[in-house]
């Protein structure tokens, strides 16, 4: 049945080099609409490079990224955001001179408006900012600055800003690194809620318990190559994956 659906994201044979170093080597990846995909791999395996190629922060040398039936080749990052790809960054990158509500105003002004056309009223904009902050549990801090936030709140702001762009696909790049167990639960619950609203999610994570409970499918990158892709339970038993993670 899965074959009958058209993929939301199709990464077609992507290669990315940095000088002589091959960071991504012929990556193939498909993500179906509404899917929750986990993407894992040891440090330096090319996960973030892949995200950057999908989002347009980096341009791949060969291969194509197809999103929602359209080729993304040559499109800048902001154009891809307008088409419906949003991401959160591994290290939170808030707009530090703006309060939390204004942080969310940027994607609303520049992506949602660009997509929907006419300017919404200021009231509607404020309401939407507050709605998003409420969703991540930061409404009480709407007027505070990012520097006043804790680590987990920062991650939530990062996700809220990505979601503010009303994406079809959300790529969460290590949203949980360095958080406590209860905080991880918190973020996971948030991601599941977003997925239930119809947002397709790619989760990049090192914390295996989180990835296993979240993902419907798991893909594994090692040294720029995809070595496994399938049901999470099967993938973690795959001898090649075990070898890559534990050594031999």
């Amino acid at each position, binding site marked *: 049945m899965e074959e009958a659906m058209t993929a939301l994201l199709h990464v077609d044979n992507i290669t990315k080099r940095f000088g002589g170093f091959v960071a991504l080597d012929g990556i193939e990846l498909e993500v179906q609409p509404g899917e929750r995909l986990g993407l894992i791999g040891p440090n330096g395996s090319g996960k973030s490079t892949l995200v950057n190629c999908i989002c347009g922060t980096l341009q791949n040398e060969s291969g194509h990224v197809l999103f929602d039936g359209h080729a993304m080749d040559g499109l800048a990052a902001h154009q891809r955001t307008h088409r419906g790809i949003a991401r959160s960054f591994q290290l939170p990158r*808030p707009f530090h001179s703006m309060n939390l509500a204004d942080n969310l*105003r940027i994607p609303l002004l520049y992506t949602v408006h660009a997509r929907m056309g006419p300017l919404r009223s200021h009231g509607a904009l404020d309401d939407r900012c507050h709605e998003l902050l409420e969703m991540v549990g930061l409404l009480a801090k709407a007027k505070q600055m990012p520097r006043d936030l804790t680590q987990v709140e920062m991650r939530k702001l990062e996700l809220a800003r990505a979601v503010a762009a009303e994406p079809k696909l959300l790529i969460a790049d290590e949203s949980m690194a360095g958080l406590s167990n209860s905080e991880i639960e918190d973020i996971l619950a948030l991601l599941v809620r977003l997925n239930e609203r119809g947002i397709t999610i790619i989760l990049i994570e090192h914390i295996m318990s989180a990835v296993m409970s979240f993902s419907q499918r798991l893909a594994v990158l090692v040294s720029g190559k995809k070595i496994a892709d399938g049901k999470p339970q099967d993938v973690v038993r795959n001898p090649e994956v075990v070898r890559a993670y534990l050594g031999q």
Partner: protein
Amino acid sequence: MNTAKFSLVALAVGAVVMTVAHWMHVDYLYFASYTILQFVVLATAWNILGGYCGYVNFGSAAFFAMGAYASVFMHKTYPLPVPILILIGGVVSGIVGFGMGYLTLRLRGSFFAIATLALSVVLQTLVVNWEYVGGSRGAYVIRPETIEFAGITINYIEYLFGLMLLLAVIALVTARTIERSQLGFGFASIRDDELAAEAAGVPTLRLKLIATTLSGAFMGMAGAPFPFYIGYLQPSSAFGLEYAVNSIAMPMIGGTTSWVGPLVGALLLGSAQQYAIVTISSAVNLLIVGLMLVAFVIIAPNGLVGLVQGWRRSWRKP
């Protein structure tokens, strides 16, 4: 306060300044105030790119000089009234700003600053070797004594002062409007984190080009009446270090995040310089800039506006 109201208030303040100056009837006052107002425009223009977007431009003098030399060129080719020359200067420097932006905005931080400095040197070299506008010898622009304006005869210096005052009002209204608009939010997101801005859907390159063009255009407009003001324009005065340094120092001292900063900085620093020129020596004014800049970096790194905001915050939260 909305933009229309603010524009009216700004115009009213301008009119009051004009009336008071006319009433006092001291030619020197016009000379000194013209320079200060010219720095209000330059500082505000610099701040559109430097303060709002976070791109430090060391080449302000080049944009100012392009405006001034556009006037010299037109004066020799086809003399036009100064207000039209101001528009021409704005267009010329706006185009130079766009070009500079296109060539250098992939550079960040100090690399961008160095590139703008290089642009300034290149343009100065071009002008020095361009005989038509006077080359290295400079060019004379004979300023008329008076100008007829709707049947009234006005002293030409007063006329230039009035034009610069109007230009300062327009520059401040523009800066304030930008600050509160979608464009202003976009600029601020670029200043804070360009990568995150792009990921949020901000077309960063296009916005930076808008900023360099606008910033350059206002600097050119500030420079256009300058040959008439000074009477004799040479490359070393048009491309003078004081324009580049003051354009940076004034917003820094006033505060870069709001339109008030460059205004306050320019009034304060400009007046101090004019005072020093008369009372001490004309060479001491850059020293004043240097000392004040060092003092402010230590005492108030966010400028006077930042200092006042800090006090306000601490009063509210005792």
